[in-house]
């Protein structure tokens, strides 16, 4: 513990403060660009740290990781396109708020929740690393399979409009994620066109599914908007938002907790932290019916969760070399390059670097919060750009963002095709969010199922492998609980609908 505070001044030496500031501001901007995910931003920066001393290099990587995760909410709120997979659920309430002219408020809430969640995550990282590291060891194929199934159970809650159509779209997502090579059995599946050989990957799909319908929607309504609303920077919003914070604290608490938990689970867990937090908040809060129509509570839950994921996702990586999320895996490269191998040595031999890194992460959260708030003041510049100007710009950005993910033009065509198909499907009441979730979860569910099946058949048998063991049972219990609650609230909702004698299910435009 003393060690921790002993290294606090380290962060203020040399150029580290400058690196921290640059990393944070740059990260906020990179994160806001669709396609430039935190993983990519960190991977691109690792080579730059070759020439820095280890601590400064890690300060840079840590601050960029932190701020890119938060930065993604900017695009999600202002143009309804998540900057990274972690921000999918931010669009549900953030964009409706922006449409009502409350963009600045939404952004303030988003950055403040990010700050709260982020600091919570880092504190967990600072003080609970050794005990929690063991937890990651509990997760083998069967546990990961059930975790991913928990994500699948969330799908029903995401569907706006018809639930059956929403779940069908989730199925479409799971199914098209199978396109390409099966990594476990080594056969090629469903490749009906040569450009699909690499499969459908997360980020091009995400960009297409959100950006293309958004652009076409703008074109549709170009003539409808008669009176142009002109947003001005308003004073006193920060005070208003600060006044709202006590009311939002249950959401932030829930979000931070879920985010931290999801962060520790190894694998792609971090991507879905936001969605799970959104779904759980919907289940636990009062008046869930306003969620999805521009409710600040939705933004707070999601943004606190995805930033709370950052710190804990590093825990298993630092002690065991097991990355908690893809970005942590890339960050590990930044450690290795300086000859620092994950393990207890990091806290003994390299304590100076490790603790400086922790402090840097904490300060990065704070700088991120401050700069985010400052940036939000100028959000009216974006909201005032007329749709006419946005259409071309968003399309071009989507194309560039998609291309840079894997430098493959086929991805761009795929992005456009998927986006157009989603646009058509939405006209018939199919919502897009379960589709994206399906694409993200598909590989996790399937790989872990196939691997688990191979392990089970070599020894225990399917039932005892998948359905015994404490961790398995706990996760299965949570899945059932989540599903049961969904059904219960669906029935309750249907009853109250009947009472109100409303003839139709609400056809949402938020999904």
């Amino acid at each position, binding site marked *: 513990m003393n060690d921790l505070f002993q290294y606090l001044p380290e962060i203020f030496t040399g150029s580290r403060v400058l690196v921290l500031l640059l990393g944070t501001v740059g990260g906020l901007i990179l994160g806001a660009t669709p396609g430039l995910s935190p*993983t*990519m931003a*960190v*991977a*691109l920066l*690792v*080579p730059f740290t*070759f020439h820095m001393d280890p601590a400064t290099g890690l300060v840079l990587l840590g601050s960029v990781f932190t701020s890119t995760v938060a930065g993604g909410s900017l695009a999600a709120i202002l143009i309804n396109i998540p900057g990274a997979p972690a921000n999918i659920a931010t669009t549900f309430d953030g964009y409706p708020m922006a449409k009502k002219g409350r963009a600045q408020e939404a952004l303030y809430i988003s950055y403040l929740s990010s700050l709260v969640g982020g600091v919570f995550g880092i504190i967990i990282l600072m003080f609970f690393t050794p005990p929690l590291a063991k937890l*990651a*060891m*509990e*997760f*083998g*194929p069967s546990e990961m399979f059930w975790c991913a199934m928990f994500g699948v159970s969330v799908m029903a809650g995401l569907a706006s409009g018809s639930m059956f159509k929403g779940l069908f779209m989730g199925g479409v997502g799971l199914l098209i994620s199978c396109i*390409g*090579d099966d*990594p*476990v059995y*080594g056969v*090629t599946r469903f490749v009906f066109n040569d450009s699909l*050989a*690499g*499969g459908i*990957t997360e980020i091009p799909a995400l960009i297409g599914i959100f950006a293309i319908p958004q652009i076409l929607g703008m074109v549709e309504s170009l003539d409808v908007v008669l009176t142009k609303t002109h947003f001005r920077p308003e004073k006193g919003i920060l005070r208003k938002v600060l006044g709202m914070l006590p009311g939002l604290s249950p959401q932030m608490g829930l979000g931070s907790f879920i985010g931290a938990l999801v962060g520790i689970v*190894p694998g792609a867990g971090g991507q879905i932290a936001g969605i799970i937090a959104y779904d759980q908040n919907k289940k636990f809060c009062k008046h869930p019916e306003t969620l999805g129509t521009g409710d600040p509570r939705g933004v707070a839950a999601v943004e606190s969760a995805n930033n709370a994921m950052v710190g804990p996702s590093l825990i298993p990586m630092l002690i*065991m*070399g*097991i*990355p908690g999320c*893809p970005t942590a*895996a*890339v960050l*590990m*490269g930044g450690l*290795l*390059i*300086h*000859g620092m*191998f*994950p*393990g207890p040595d990091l806290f003994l031999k390299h304590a100076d670097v490790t603790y400086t890194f922790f402090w840097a992460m904490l300060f990065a959260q704070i700088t991120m919060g401050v700069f985010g708030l400052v940036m939000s003041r100028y959000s009216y510049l974006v909201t005032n750009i007329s749709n006419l100007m946005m259409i071309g710009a968003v399309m071009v950005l989507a194309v560039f963002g998609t291309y840079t993910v*894997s*430098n*493959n033009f086929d991805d761009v065509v795929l992005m456009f095709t998927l986006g157009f198909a989603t646009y058509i499907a939405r006209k018939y009441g199919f919502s897009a969010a379960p589709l994206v979730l399906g694409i993200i979860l598909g590989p996790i569910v399937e*790989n872990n199922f196939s*691997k688990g099946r*191979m*392990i089970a*058949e*070599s*020894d225990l048998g399917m039932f005892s492998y998948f359905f015994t063991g404490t961790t398995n049972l706990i996760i299965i219990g949570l899945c059932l609980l989540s599903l049961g609650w969904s059904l219960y609230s669906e029935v309750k909702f249907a009853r109250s609908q009947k009472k109100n004698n409303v003839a139709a299910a609400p056809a949402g435009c938020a999904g």
Partner: protein
Amino acid sequence: MRKAALNAVITVLATMMLLGAAAVGSAGNYPDKPISIVVTYSPGGATDYQARVATMEASDEKYFGQPCVIINKPGAGGKVGWNWFVDSAPKDGYTMVTYNIPHFIAQSLVFETHYGYDAFEPLANWGADPAVLIVPQDSPFNSIKDLVDYAKQNPGKVTVSGAGLYVGHHIALLQFMKAAGIQMTYIPEQGGTDAITSVISGKIQAGFNNLSDAYRNKQRIKILGICDVQRDKDFLPEVPTFKEAGYPEVDDTSVNLRGLAFPKGVDPALIDKVAATLAKMFESKIIKDAMFMGGCPLKIMTREQVIQMFNERQKTLSVLFPKKVQ
């Protein structure tokens, strides 16, 4: 509307002419612009990381005087990138690709790929990462023999992880099973890190993994053997080879070799020049030190050696993976 469209067309033509005039082609000494290196895996993976380290001195005047830019084209275990490379990479000498032996040769034997062992013009090899046999820290197996004895009595019950299908680890296991006459279950993971994780946590009984990754996790696993013709002097001098344990059939075929190649059709004079420069660059002290720090074993091979090695691997691997009847 029609007038608008016509105007738009005129604008397009005008700007095209303007920009066309601005674009000037310049011919000079090679290289006069950055060299692109196509890495067929995602950023952050072992190949990507090593490629970045191995080429970081390129902008030194002693070597190329121009930086190398890494372009990641991941997908389908490298197939997407390599297919793209043989089909449409520019042949002007400014685009190279990283190869992974034995992975890409095994792939070309099993799948219908656009490439084979002779589809590239190899330039130079920088690294060799032998596969090692690992078991969890608390495993009852303390030597290769223990494992073989157990597997003989319990065919198919031992689970073995590796970084994916048809990579060096998979090949090492196939060779090992053939040599010892045993049956084990191979669990392909998403990558080397995932594969070693499942062994550390004891979810899987054994694994073949990269020497470099195993070395980093030395305190948390037991390393039983190394699939190479000789022991590794730098990192793991105490670990015996499979040959010493009585399985000489498990040779260095599974050693993961990484290097750079041009597409077919590049000017032969340029190939020789670049191959020589690369070999010299990999020998530099800065790169050697950086590689050693990251725990990546070096093995620098010249173009001739790499071509010979490609041919040998093709022979051994086509026995292991007989080509499917089309």
